[in-house]
C-alpha cells in the first residue's frame, strides 16, 4: 500500500516537473515556430502555436542570409566581444581570486572587502561618469570601451577564491622547493587545478557578455559596431518593427550559447554547485 502511494506521488512530481519544463521551453518553441512564418502573419494574429504548413517557410532566414541588414556584422561583433571579454575576465579574475585566497598579506582583507563592495553596488549607478570617462579615453564606439570597465569582475573573483579555499596550500610550498616561481605555481599548477571553476565561469561570463545590453548600448554608436542584442532591439522602432528579421535573428542569436551550454552543462552545473555558495 505504502509503496503504491509513493509511486503515485513521484509520478505526480514528474508531471509537475514536466509542466515546469514546458513553461521553460514553451516561449522558445513559440518563437522558433514563428520564425518560419511570414511577419504579416505575426502582425495580424500575434505569436501563436498554430502549425500552418502552407505558409511556413525559410524566407525569414533567407532574408537574413542575403545580407541586406548588418545582422552578421552584429553577430561577428558579439563573438569578438564575448571571446575577448571571457578570456580576459577569467585570467584576470582568477589571478585576483588566487592572490586573495592563497597568500597572507597586509591588505588582503581590505581588498576583499572592496571586492564585496563592488559586488554590492549596481553598475547602473556609475553609468553616466563611466560614459564620460569612456569619451575622455576615446573608447566610445570601440570594442575595448565595452570590455574594459567590467573585465575584472567581482563575482568571478569571489567564485575563484571560494573554489581555491578547497585546494591545500602545501602544493605551493612543494612547488617552491622544486624551484618554481610564484607565477609559475599559478600558471603551471593552480590553473590546471582550477579547470572546473574555469569551465563554470566561462559559461556564465560568456552568457553575460553575449546578452549584455545597457552598457554596450551606451558605448556603441554606429550600426556596424553594434552587438546582437542592441542590433536586434534597434529593429523595433516607433515607425514599425522588422519582425521577420527580429524573430529569425533571435532564434539564431540563442543558438551558439545554447550549443555551448549543452556541450559543457555537466561541468557548468558541477562547477556551480562545487564553488558557488557554501555554508
Amino acid at each position, binding site marked *: 500500500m505504502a509503496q503504491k502511494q509513493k509511486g503515485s506521488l513521484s509520478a505526480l512530481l514528474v508531471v509537475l516537473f514536466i509542466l515546469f519544463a514546458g513553461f521553460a521551453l514553451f516561449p522558445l518553441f513559440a518563437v522558433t515556430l514563428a520564425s518560419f512564418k511570414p511577419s504579416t502573419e505575426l502582425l495580424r494574429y500575434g505569436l501563436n502555436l498554430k502549425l500552418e504548413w502552407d505558409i511556413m517557410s525559410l524566407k525569414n532566414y533567407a532574408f537574413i542570409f542575403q545580407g541586406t541588414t548588418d545582422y552578421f556584422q552584429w553577430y561577428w561583433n558579439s563573438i569578438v566581444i564575448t571571446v575577448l571579454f571571457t578570456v580576459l575576465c577569467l585570467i584576470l579574475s582568477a589571478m585576483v581570486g588566487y592572490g586573495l585566497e592563497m597568500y597572507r598579506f597586509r591588505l*588582503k582583507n581590505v*581588498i576583499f572587502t572592496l571586492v*564585496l563592495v563592488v559586488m554590492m553596488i549596481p553598475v547602473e*549607478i556609475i553609468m553616466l561618469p563611466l560614459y564620460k570617462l569612456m569619451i575622455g579615453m576615446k573608447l566610445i564606439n570601440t570594442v575595448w570601451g565595452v570590455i574594459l570597465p567590467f573585465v575584472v569582475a567581482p563575482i568571478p573573483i569571489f567564485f575563484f577564491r571560494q573554489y581555491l579555499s578547497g585546494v591545500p596550500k602545501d602544493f605551493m610550498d612543494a612547488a617552491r622547493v622544486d624551484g618554481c616561481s610564484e607565477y609559475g605555481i599559478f600558471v603551471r599548477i593552480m590553473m590546471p587545478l582550477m579547470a572546473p571553476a574555469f569551465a563554470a565561469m566561462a559559461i556564465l561570463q560568456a552568457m553575460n557578455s553575449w546578452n549584455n545590453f545597457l552598457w554596450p548600448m551606451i558605448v556603441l554608436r554606429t550600426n556596424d559596431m553594434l552587438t*546582437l542584442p542592441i542590433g536586434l532591439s534597434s529593429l523595433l522602432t516607433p515607425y514599425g518593427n522588422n519582425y521577420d528579421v527580429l524573430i529569425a535573428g533571435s532564434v539564431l542569436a*540563442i543558438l551558439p550559447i545554447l550549443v555551448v551550454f*549543452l556541450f559543457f552543462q555537466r561541468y557548468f552545473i558541477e562547477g556551480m554547485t562545487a564553488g558557488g555558495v557554501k*555554508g
Partner: protein
Amino acid sequence: MATPVHTNANVPTGQPPKTQRPARSQWSRFIHSSRTAPYVFVLPFLLSFALFFAYPVISTVIMSFQEVLPGITTYVGLENYKDLINPTFGKAILNSVLYTLLTLVVLIPLPLVLAVLLNSPKMPGRGLFRSVMFIPALTSVVVAGTIFRLMFGELDGSLMNSLLGVFGLEPYKWLMNANTGFLALIVLALWRWLGVNMLYYMSGLQNIPPELYEAAQIDGASRFDSFWRITIPMLKPVTIYVFTISIYAGLSMFTESYMLWNGNNSPNDIGLTIVGYLYRQGLEQNSMGFGAAVGIVLLVFTLVLNLIQLKFFGMFRKED
C-alpha cells in the same frame, strides 16, 4: 632593517642555482619575491577598482551637484535633488520597489521547494529537468522581452488572449494596463530566473550532511518537520545569497521594461524604473547632473539595504 636584505642577497651566492639562468636583476628579484607576488596578483583588481569604480562613484556624487552641459559645468547645489521630488520619479521608485518585492515573493520560495523535490534521489530525470529549467537564463533579455511582448500582445491571436478565449473572455490589452503589465514583467522574471535559483538551492542541499536527516528520522520527525527544522535553516546561506542578488537585480531592472514597451516609454510610465529614469534624464535628455542625482538615490537605496542586511545576516561568509 638591513639584515633581511643582506641574507636575501647572500642566498643565491651560497647556493648556486642548478639551472643556468642569467643573474637576476634587483627588479626581477623584487617582482618574484613571495612578498610582492600577492600584490601582483591583485593588481588587476586594484587598477580596475580605482579607474572604473572609485573614480566614477566619486564623480557621480560630484556631478549630482552640478548642471552638466557640453563644455560647461556649473555648480547648482541641491537643485538636482529638489527636482527629484516629482510624480514621475516617485512612480519610478514605486515600480522598482514593487518589482523587487514581487520577484522576491516568487523567486525564493518556489525555487526552494522545487529544488527540494528535485533533489530526491528517487526522482527520475533530475539532471534533465535541472538543465532544461536553466535554459531560459541563456537567452538575452532582448530576445526574451521580444517573445513576451508578443505573447502578451493585444492582438486577438496572441497567446495570452487566445488563452482568455478558451475561457470565453474578451481579448485584453495586457501591456497597456499597469497591473497586467506588471504581471508580464513578473512572469518574464520567473521564466528567466526560476532555474537559476533552483540550481543555487540544489547546490546548497548537497552541502547538508545526510546524518542530520537520519537522526531526525530516528527521533520520529515527520518529513515536514525535517524540511522545516533542518532544510530551511541549513539553506540560510543560499537564501541570503539569492535574496541579495535578487534585490540588486530588482532595483536595477531596466532592460526588461525597455523591451516589453519598445523603448523607455511605457504608457503612463507604468513600466518606468529608477534606472529607466536615470537613462531618460542622463542620456536621452542629456541632463547628466540630474541623472547622477537619480543614481545617488539608487546608491542610497542599496546602501541602506546593505546595512540592514549586514545587521540581520552578517556577511556571506565569516572567516579570517
